[in-house]
Structures are given as C-alpha cells and as structure tokens.
C-alpha cells in the first residue's frame, strides 16, 4: 500500500516535465490529456489510500513512505518521505479531486489562449508542490512545497505577463508571501533548535514533555502562524489575494480559493499539538481570524468586480477557519476548509463561465439577466451561493454552524462577530447573485449578442462541484441533527494528543444548539430578502460615480485605503532606503572594493608575467636561489 504513495506526487511532476519538454510537438488535445490524466491518476491513488485509511483497523492511522535519504550532515538528517494520515489524506482528496475538475474546466476555458501548454505545465507543477506540502513528513519538505506553490501562484497570477498590472499583482503576491515565509522558516529553525529534529513524529512526541504555555513553544507557534498569515491572506497580509485575481479564473478557483490559501489552515492543524500547548497563540489566531472575517466581509459588500467579491469572500471565509482553529476545534476548521473548497471553487468556476460568456466582462454592473442565457451556470451558481450563505442542507451550513457553535461555547463576543461576518456573507453573495443573474441585461448590444453558455468541459465540472456543495456537508452532520460526524471520527487520531492535553471540551446542550441554528438560518433568510428587495424589486444598480457615495460606503468601496496606507508606510520608505543603499553603499563602497580587487589582480598578473622571461639561464638561477633559500630556511621555519 505504502508503495503507491510515491506515485501520487510523481504523476503531476511527470505531467509537468512531459508537457514542458515536448512543448511544441504536442497538440492541445494531448496536452489536456496528459495534464488532466496526471492529476486523475493522483486522484485515483489518493482515493485508494483514503478508503484504506477509512477502513483501517484501530491504531493503524497512517501510512509512511520514504523515497530516499535527502540531506545528512552532522546531527541533521532529513529524508524525502511522505506521511499519509487522515489529515493529509483529506487534503489530498481535495487537492487532486477539485484539482482534476478544475483541470478539465480549464481545457474549455483556456482553449483559445496562446499560453495553453504553459498554463497546464504550471497547473501540474502546482499540484505537485501542493501535494508535497501536505504529504511531507517533515517541516523541510512542507517548506519546499510551501515555496513551490508560492512560485506557481506567482507564475499563474502573472500568466498574462504582457499586462504590467498583472505582473505587479504577481510580484505583490510573491513579496507579501515572502514576509510570511520568513516567519515560517524561522519557526522551523526554532523547532530544530528546540527539538533537535524536524520530523513531525519526533517533534510531536517530544512536545509532550513541554508544559502548557511554555515560552519557546509560544514563539514557535507565533512564527509559524506568521507564515500562515501570509499564505492564507489574513490581516495584515491579505491585500495580495484580491489582486491575485489577475490570473486566469481557474487559477483563482484552484490556488486562490480551494487549495493553496488553505495551506495555512493545514499547517496549523498539522501542528495542533504545539498550538494546543500555547493558549496564548490560539487567542491570537482567533482574534486575527475573527477580525479578518469581519473586515473582508464588509469590503466585499461594496465591490463591483465579480472576482474581487469572491476574493474578499475567500479572505473572510479563511478568517472563519482560523477562528475555528483558534478555538481548538481543529476538525471544524478542516471541515469548513473542505466544504469551502467545494463551493468556492464552484463559485469561481461559475464566475469564470459568466466572464467567458460575457466576452471577458467582470463588472457586475454590466451584467444582469444572465439566467436565461446561461442556465447551467445559473443553477450551479445558485447552489454555490446557497452553500456559502449557510442554508441547510447545503454544505456551508454544517461547517459554518459548527464554527459558530464552538464560538458560542467559547465566548459570546466571538460568536456575535462571527455571526455578523457570516450574515454579511449571505448579503453580499446574494447581491452578487441578483446583480448577475436577475433583472435586465445591462451589457452593450454587441456583448449581448455574443452571450453564450460555456462548453461541456466547463459545465460538467460545475455540475459535479454543485453536487458536492449540496451533499458535502453530510460528512459532518452534528449529533443534534441525528448525525455521527464521520469526518470528526476519521480525523480524531490526528488530534488525539491535543485532545488529551486540552482536556474535555465544553459542549453546548442540544437545545441551545438548535436555537442558535434556527436563529442564524432565520437571520440569513432576512439578509437574502433584503438583498432581494434592493437588487431585484428596486432594481438598484451600484453607481459608478464615487463622489455620490456616502462617507462610510466610500471607505468600504476603497477597501479602507489599506493598499494606500501600506504604500505610504512601507513601500515608499523602502524605496527611499533602497536608493540610499544604491548610491552610497553599492556604488561608492562595494563597487570600488570589487573593481579594486579586480584591478589589483590584473596588475599583479601583468607584473608577475614578466618573471617568465623565456631565458633558461635566468630560470635556472631562480631555481638555484630558491633551493638555497629553502636549505637555509631550516633554521627559521
């Protein structure tokens, strides 16, 4: 069984190499075949492992596979080995499953693009690195994957590199991630210093010797969390994700919604033992998650770009996942991550289908009435919207409700803020939905003429994801609704040690839970109704005249001017500092040292060369003198 593991990341890597090397000689059909096929193989193998784990006897909760010893120096040794336990198996299912659907979708979406082959190359490479990230059995391998997906994200955001704005967006994503990565690598180094190993198994078993609240563990977890903040777009490093929408839409769905941005969630869940040992860090995680969830949700209300709304929604949902993690409800975080992968991928792909049908229009003010033009997209998008809004029995309901229930048990404030964020979510999502699909079409005549439903390769993934968004929640039906929470049971071995440290969790009684559920669903329906009355009954369309907006609205419309603030506080001083270094340190100091060394050696060479006169007599004389010096020198050396 374990032997299969190596092939899972290998398949997309081979796909990448194959398409890369045979680039020009492959037709688009073959490129699609190899790219999708590679991910499909990975998906099948992941499923086999997944179901094996599901049926595995008690106690055998993980497979490991060591490909080779990677680095061995002194007391530091790392092997290139994989760990497949319930947590990584769940991640692998999402990465390869959703990844495969998005690959298929991209065949239709990117078909007329000149960079078709390059696109699939990057996409396969991304899947490879993402699998490394979740499958690695040590921090270094995770870090390689972590950096690799960052690279792919950069390449794909700037995929249409002829547009300078897109390049800037790609650079922004890369640089902001780099800040987070610095935290991550420092955390890993600190782990090595503290535990003397960077293998998960060693670290977690040794962590048991540390008391709860230990200072060094707090530092480690904070540093790791900095990495998660960058990768998962949390305050204050979230501004890259909305800009990352510059990439092709399937990329936004795969990388910037379903998989890569959830790497931070995975990483914290993987390190649950360390985080449980540091209640202080967990508080920080909760606060940051909560703030991000609310903050991003308010921004999303006033955005008019269909992908930007979804991007802020992603940031907000990621915030909710961190709230769950911060509350110590690791399973809940993973649960929401999984359902979010389904419905957010669906929404992005639906948005892609809309953009595709509307001749690359992304402004929802110019859409409207698309229901009759794009029936399949309409239905599936509706499913996605209901799922994210948390209407039962759609997937989002179960996972979001679980987060809120946990929050309520922990503190009423966390619950209230979380509830507000999720109510805002249902408002802006239905605003988006109504503006896009209902009413009259507001596009120009020319665009209107061309509107068409997308090809099958795009609509079929939409339908599959819609089904998943509909039934995905059933893997975690809570007890109060008569379920047994299969996911919880499946994942429990991974979090067993944490549960032991944290002790018994405070549980809500069933009646409170039901009341909360009813309350939130009722309020969500109210929010939907408000959106309906504004955007359908009153047919109001957001104005394009910024000056006519109220002050608060304008603040939100301009995303609280965070980008501008970063620009003034960080970017400009950095540029200034860079200029100073360039003109003083670089040009005056380093250049002179470097050029001086070169000149000195050239001069030395010119001079020494003259010793080589070509005169044999001189040569012999020089030798004789040298010998005499050496003989005499015995008394000195």
């Amino acid at each position, binding site marked *: 069984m374990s032997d299969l593991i190596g092939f899972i990341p290998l398949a997309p890597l081979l796909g990448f190499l194959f398409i890369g090397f045979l680039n020009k000689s492959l037709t688009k059909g073959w490129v699609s075949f190899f790219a999708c096929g590679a991910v499909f193989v990975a998906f099948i193998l992941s499923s086999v492992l997944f179901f094996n784990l599901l049926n595995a006897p008690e106690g055998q909760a993980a497979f490991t596979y060591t490909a080779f010893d990677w680095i061995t120096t002194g007391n530091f040794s790392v092997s290139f080995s994989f760990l497949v336990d319930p947590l990584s198996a769940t991640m692998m299912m999402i990465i390869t499953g959703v990844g495969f659907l998005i690959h298929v979708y991209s065949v239709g979406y990117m078909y007329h693009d000149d960079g078709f082959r390059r696109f699939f190359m990057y996409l396969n490479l991304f899947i490879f690195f993402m699998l490394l990230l979740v499958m690695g059995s040590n921090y270094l391998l995770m870090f390689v994957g972590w950096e690799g997906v960052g690279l792919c994200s950069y390449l794909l955001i700037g995929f249409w590199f002829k547009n300078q704005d897109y390049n800037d967006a790609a650079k922004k994503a890369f640089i902001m991630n780099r800040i987070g990565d610095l935290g991550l690598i420092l955390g890993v180094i600190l782990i090595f210093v503290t535990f003397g190993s960077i293998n998960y198994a060693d670290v977690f078993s040794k962590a048991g010797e540390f008391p709860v609240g230990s200072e060094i563990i707090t530092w480690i977890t904070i540093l790791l969390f900095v990495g998660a903040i960058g990768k998962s777009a949390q305050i204050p490093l979230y501004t890259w994700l909305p800009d990352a929408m510059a990439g092709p839409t399937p990329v936004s769905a795969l990388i910037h919604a379903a998989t890569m941005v959830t790497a931070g969630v995975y990483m914290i869940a993987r390190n649950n033992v360390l985080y449980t040992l540091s209640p202080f860090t967990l508080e920080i995680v909760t606060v940051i998650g909560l703030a991000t969830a609310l903050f991003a949700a308010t921004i999303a209300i006033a955005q008019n770009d269909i992908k930007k709304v979804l991007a802020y929604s992603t940031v907000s949902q990621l915030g909710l996942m961190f709230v769950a993690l911060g509350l110590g409800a690791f399973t809940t975080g993973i649960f929401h991550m999984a359902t979010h992968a389904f419905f957010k991928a669906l929404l992005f792909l639906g948005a892609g289908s809309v953009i595709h049908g509307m001749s690359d229009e992304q402004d929802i003010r110019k859409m409207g009435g698309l229901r009759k033009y794009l029936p399949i997209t309409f239905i599936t998008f509706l499913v996605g919207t209901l799922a994210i809004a948390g209407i039962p029995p759609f997937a989002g309901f179960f996972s979001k409700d679980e987060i809120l229930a946990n929050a309520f048990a922990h503190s009423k404030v966390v619950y209230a803020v979380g509830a507000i964020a999720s109510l805002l979510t249902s408002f802006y999502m239905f605003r988006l939905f109504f503006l896009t699909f209902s009413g009259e079409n507001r596009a120009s005549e020319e665009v209107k003429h061309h509107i068409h439903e997308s090809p099958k390769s795009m609509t079929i993934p939409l339908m599959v994801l819609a089904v998943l968004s509909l039934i995905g929640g059933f893997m975690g039906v809570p007890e109060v609704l008569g379920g047994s929470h299969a996911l919880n049971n499946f994942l429990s071995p991974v979090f067993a040690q944490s549960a032991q440290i944290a002790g018994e969790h405070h549980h809500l009684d069933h009646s409170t839970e039901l009341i909360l559920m009813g309350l939130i669903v009722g309020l969500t329906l109210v929010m939907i109704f408000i959106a309906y009355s504004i955007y359908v009954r009153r047919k109001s369309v957001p104005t394009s005249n910024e000056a006519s907006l109220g002050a608060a609205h304008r603040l939100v419309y301009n995303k609280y001017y965070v980008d501008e603030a970063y620009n003034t506080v960080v970017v400009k001083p950095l540029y200034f500092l860079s200029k100073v270094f360039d003109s003083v340190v670089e040009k005056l100091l380093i250049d002179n040292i470097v050029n001086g060394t070169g000149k000195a*050696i050239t001069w030395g060479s010119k001079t020494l*060369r003259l*010793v*080589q006169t070509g005169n*044999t007599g001189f040569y*012999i004389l*020089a030798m004789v003198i040298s010998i005499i010096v*050496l003989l005499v*020198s*015995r008394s000195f050396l």
Partner: protein
Amino acid sequence: MNAVYILSGLGIFSLLAEIFSFRKILFPIVLLGLLATAGLLVMDWNTGTSHFSNMLTFDNYAIAFSAGIAVIAFLWFLMSRDYFENNTHVTDHFALVLFSLVGAVFMVSYSNLAMLFLGIEILSISLYIMAGSKMTDLFSNEASFKYFLMGSFATGFLLFGIALVYGVTGSFDLGKINQVITAGSTEFSALLYAGVLLMMVGLAFKISAVPFHFWAPDVYEGSPTVVTAFMSTIVKIAAFAGFFRLFATCFASVSGEWVNVVQVIAVLTLVVSNITAVYQNSVKRMLAFSSIAHAGYLLITLVALNEISASAILYYVLAYAAASLAAFAVLHNVAFENENASAESFNGLSKRNPFHAFAMTVALLSLAGIPPLAGFFAKYYIFTVAFESGYVGIVLLAVVTSLIGIYYYFRIIIAMYLKAPETTTPVAVTTMHNVMLVICLLSTIILGLFPDMIIKLI
C-alpha cells in the same frame, strides 16, 4: 606487474611495426593493449604483490593510479591519433609514448628509490623527444631543448638527494629508510634534511610547483598541443603520485621537518600560477598556468597529510585529467594547424561548433570547481582533508585563488557564447574526437554525481 610487461611489449611491437609494416593495425592494438593493462591491474586489486626483489610494489595505491593512467592514456590516444598520422613517424612516437607510460607506472608503484629515479628518467627522456616532435617548428624545438636542459638539472638534484638519503640511512628501500628514520634516536640530521629537501626539489620540478615551474609555461606552449595534453595529465599524475608515495610513506614519520617547506611551495604555487594566468592571452599558456595551479591544490593534501589524503588525490587527478583532456582536445581542433590559439580564436565557437563549445564549457567549469561537476568535489575533498588536519588558513587562500581561477576560465566561456565569431567556417572534427569528448564529459559528470565510487577506493 603484467601491466608493465604489456606496456613494454606494446612499445617494442610499435618499433617492429615500422619494419614489418603493419602500421595500419597498430592503433587498434595499442588501444586494446591499454584496456587490457587497466583490466589486468584491476584484477590484482588487494593482492599487494612485490616484484624484482621488492623494487616495485603493486599495492592498491599503485594499482589505482596505474589503472587511471592506462585509461587516461587510452583517451589520449583517441585524441592524438590524427596528429601522429599527419606529422610524425607514427610508430616511433607510439613507442616513445608507450615507454613513457612504463616509466609512469614505475613512478606510482616503486618501493625503492632506484626505481623512482628510473621511472622518472624513462618518462622524461621520451618526453624530451616528444616535445620536439614537430621538427620544422622552432617553438617545438625550443620547448624540447629547454625542457631537456632544465629537466636534467632537476634530475641532478633528485639524484643528489637520493644519494644523501642513502648516505644517512644506508638503503634505497622505502620501508628500510622509514625504519631507520623512525627508529633513529638521534635528531633529524642536517644531511638527511638536505637529502629530503633536494628530492623534494627534483619532484616539485616534475609537478611544476612554484618556484620550480619556470619551464612549464614555455614548454607547454611550445610543444604540440597533444604532447602538452600528455604532459599536463599523465606526467603530472605520475609525478604527483610518486611525490606523494615518497613523502606519505617514507618520510611521513618526520613530516614536521619538511611540512613547512611544502606549505610554502603550495602557497606560492597557488598564488603565482592563478594570478599569472589572469593576463595570459594564449589559451594554451593559460591552461599551462592552470595546470600549475592544480599542482598547488594537490600539494595541500601533502601538507595536511592524513588517512584520506590518498583518496582525495586519486579523485582529484581523475577529475582533473578528464576535464583537462577535453579542454586540450577542443583547443587542438580550434587552433588546428598553428598549434596555438588566443582567447579571441574561441569567439563565437558556440555557433561554429556547438558541441565543442559545450564540451569546453563543461571542462572549464569542472576545472574551475563548479558543482555538480567532478572538479567541485575534487576541491571539496582536498579542502576537507585540510580542514580535518586543521589547516584552515591554506583552505581560505585556496578558495580565494579558486575565485581568481573562475575569472580566467570564464573568459573563454564568455568568448565562446557571447562574442561574434571571426570566421563562420565550422570547426571540422573527427568522430574519434567526438567520442573521446563524450567519454570525458560523461566521466566529469558521473564522477561529480557519484564521488563515492572513487573516494572509497583507497
């Protein structure tokens, strides 16, 4: 031991080939003979037999170096065939080369100072003739004569040194000399010191270490390119292996007495050769200085003598020989008739012959010590040896000189790829050269990827 018989037999066969005119089949027979030599040597692995009343000992050290020399000679013959066919009496020169190989084998396997001397002389006398093998070329004649004059001078020192050591210890046998020196309750006498030092001078001359290197640039430049390749690979390897064998076994117990001198020579060699090479415009002369510089790196192992020195040297010389032969082969083809080439004649080689440009690049990168090529690990192991013995200073210096080395090696690479060619005529090459280059390149890469193959041998 069979190796010596086969090589000598091949040499005599070459001489007869002229008389009985089977010149045509001579070349393949020589190639087969060299492979057979290497094969027979490998079969003797771990036997450690002595011959001629303990004059030669084929221990693993001797076998590894002799087999290496046979393989390098094989490649060298592939490279130089066209030169001998066109310019000289092929049979005579084949015989000379084969006899000099016998000398080289003596030099790595001797256990008696008389055999060391004999080996050096057999090797050198053949070389004096080969350096002048282009009879109508004044430079070739000059090289031959200079080499002969200075070589005989150095041989004098070596012989003098051997005589002094004999005078003190009463033996030519390495083992006995070592016994006498180790057991000698008296202090290290001035007479013995002089003997050791004079032998060191004689051998330092052979490996062209500064300040006994003056002959090398002139002789390397004046000799035909293929002969230069022979001198800078096989001769250098044999000489250094002989040098190391003497000092690591015979005089190791009194290393405190001579190590400082070697250190001074190593430092001078590294600095002078690398710096002088920077300003050379003739590629052949640049390679000559580069070859001196590599002797400097090798000397570090003798300074920092420990149990892994020998393996480090073996790996180094093999890596160096593979890269060096490739570089000389390319130079040979680029310079063509005039036997010499400036850096400018490499301009735009990537367009005139992409494979040659690539081969030259790999060879130069390996010589410069860029990973993952063999040249990198060669330097790495030598620096490891020095580090383990605590010679940090000399490692730092060697790293700096390696950096200088990168400058002059990259000059050629830049010329090949970034400068416009002076002529557009493609460089004509024979299949044999391409085969030989492919073998050299593969060895350079494979040795770099799997250094353990060699490094665990002895």
